[in-house]
């Protein structure tokens, strides 16, 4: 997690701070998208912040994250600086992926952030392999893998939960069930809509969590991560959440009603936590205003950084297709060894 907000010591404060960072960052992204500073596909996480914040709170610095194209939130909370995320969306060489990835492909080796994967379900095998490497090398690390309800219809999901359960790998499967895969409602793509129940059939520990309640998510994630570290194999959390915005900037949002969206907005994860903290005298309106202002400064700085960041030289277009350290190695065939 990024450094704690200056004021206060309430454990809830940092959760709030991180959720608000995501919210404000993405609100600015919308403006920048209208200004055509950010292009391509961009998917917003607004409404789902409690999931990334609660899950990431349970992770240690050397744990790994594999995420989707809806990953600004995961990357920010993980500690990938807002500056390099913004520069990436601007397509600049200072971006975390040197402008080759954009909004959907945030990568950061330092924070073990393995994308930014825009093939639905395609990141899951990476998470299984990262966890396999940890297990084979005797390291006690967790790989958290985020994916949506839609991804659970992909074959890769079923192959991967089976593999992880079969080999008892340290994977935290974090299913962000926001009830839609683009415009397809959950019940229109899944015969059995109880996703935790289905995951449990693969012999791993799985349970549903209120994904609008950051404390519930953090508590569940901490329990799951502890159990994974203790060697009890993969865990699956179905995080029941909702995206307040359209699927992407291209989506006219014709497949759900305004009333439904408004109903869910009453359960805004940020508002809910603020209300709780105020009731417990953990935060004042002034504190909140300061927190918000600090966040705005951070985002302003990120935008300023992206605005002035240079572009990758076109001559460098084909760099990183192969490793630049590639040896032209050779294998030696010795006559004595040839016999079996």
């Amino acid at each position, binding site marked *: 997690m990024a450094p704690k907000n200056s004021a206060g010591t309430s454990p809830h404060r940092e959760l709030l701070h991180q959720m608000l960072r995501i919210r404000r960052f993405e609100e600015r992204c919308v403006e920048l998208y209208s200004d055509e500073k950010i292009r391509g596909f961009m998917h917003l996480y607004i409404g789902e912040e409690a999931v990334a914040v609660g899950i990431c709170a349970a992770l240690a610095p050397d744990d790994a994250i594999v995420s989707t194209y809806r990953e600004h939130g995961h990357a920010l909370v993980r500690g990938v600086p807002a500056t390099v995320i913004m520069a990436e969306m601007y397509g600049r060489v200072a971006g*975390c992926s040197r402008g080759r990835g954009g909004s959907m492909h945030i990568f950061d080796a330092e924070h073990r952030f393995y994308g930014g994967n825009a093939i639905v379900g395609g990141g899951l095998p990476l998470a299984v392999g990262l966890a396999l490497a940890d297990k084979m*090398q005797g390291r006690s690390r967790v790989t958290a893998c985020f994916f949506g309800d839609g991804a659970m219809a992909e074959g890769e999901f079923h192959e991967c939960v089976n*593999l992880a359960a*079969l080999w008892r790998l340290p994977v935290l499967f974090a299913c962000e069930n926001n009830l839609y895969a683009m415009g397809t409602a959950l019940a229109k793509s899944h015969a059995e809509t109880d996703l935790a129940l289905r995951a449990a059939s693969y012999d791993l520990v799985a349970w549903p969590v209120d994904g609008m309640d950051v404390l519930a998510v953090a508590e569940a994630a901490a329990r799951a991560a502890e159990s994974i570290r203790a060697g009890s194999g993969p865990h699956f959390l179905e995080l029941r959440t909702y995206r307040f915005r359209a699927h992407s900037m291209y989506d006219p949002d014709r497949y759900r009603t305004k009333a439904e969206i408004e109903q869910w907005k009453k359960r805004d994860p940020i508002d809910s936590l603020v209300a709780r903290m105020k009731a417990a005298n953990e935060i004042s309106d002034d504190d909140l205003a300061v927190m918000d202002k600090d966040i705005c400064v951070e985002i302003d700085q990120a935008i300023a950084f992206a605005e002035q960041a240079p572009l990758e030289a076109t001559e460098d277009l084909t760099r990183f297709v*192969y490793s630049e350290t590639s040896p032209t190695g*050779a294998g030696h065939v010795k006559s004595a060894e*040839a016999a079996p």
Partner: protein
Amino acid sequence: MTERGTTTYREAIREAIREALLRDDRVFLMGEDVGVYGGCFAVSLGLLEEFGPGRVRDTPLSEAGFVGAGIGAALGGMRPIVEIMTVNFSLLALDQIMNNAATLLHMSGGQFNVPLVIRMTTGAGRQLAAQHSHSLEGWYAHIPGLKILAPATLEDARGMLAPALDDPDPVLIFEHGGLYNMSGVPRPGLVDIATAALRRTGDDITLIAYGGTLHKTLAAADELATRGIKADVVDLRVLRPLDDATIMESIGRTHRAVIVDEGWRSGGLSAEISARIMEQAFYQLDAPVQRVCTAEVPIPYARHLEEAAIPQVIGIVAAAREAVAA
């Protein structure tokens, strides 16, 4: 009695895997039936007993899952060798190979390389029909980010794996199913994964082949020699990146070329090589480049139909004679 040091293509690959497992703790083999069964073509027979189930891992029938897990394990510091039974089945893992293994380094701006080796069987000739016999290595050679190897000799079967594992990027090794029983005494020496090899020399024509068609092409060269036509035989060995220099050097001497490819002609590897010859050696040519490829059909079962479908010595000889007569 066999000569001392005699080995088969299958045993040469097994020995290469064995050596890799002994040499580096990070190396492990994973795939369907590689362990208890010994590999669907018996390549890994005995390795489970020697190295245990942690390093010789049987997987479920989940090509996308375990190929992708190999990519993830490579990202996590391991050096996996993933075996896919045949190239036809690799299509179930194509998403992982194309969208992850081949793209991650570039898409992450140089942060995440994938040091992974994937081995699989390719090719026809064993009456296995249309879902077990295709030669799709040319498709894979289309993809930037991958390196594609096609060992056709005992030396390459034995020697290509080590440099492939040392490579920081994903390497796919295509083993022709018709070669596993080929036997002989491998010659000692260094084997690289960067160049094509001249397997025979002759200044009248260049025959370009790889993998399963190399041996047919060498037989065709023998036949041509009896007719007074001396052929260079270029074994491509590495299908991506192609070693243009070796091809063009040969054509610079012979001024004629025949490309032999068990893949299909349309949009295939032979088309790519032919185009490169036009681009780089057009004024050296004394005749149009000829191609001997697989007929444009799914590979059929019946022996005579399968033989008619894939490149044969007689067709290679005919193409070469036509080029020389032109």
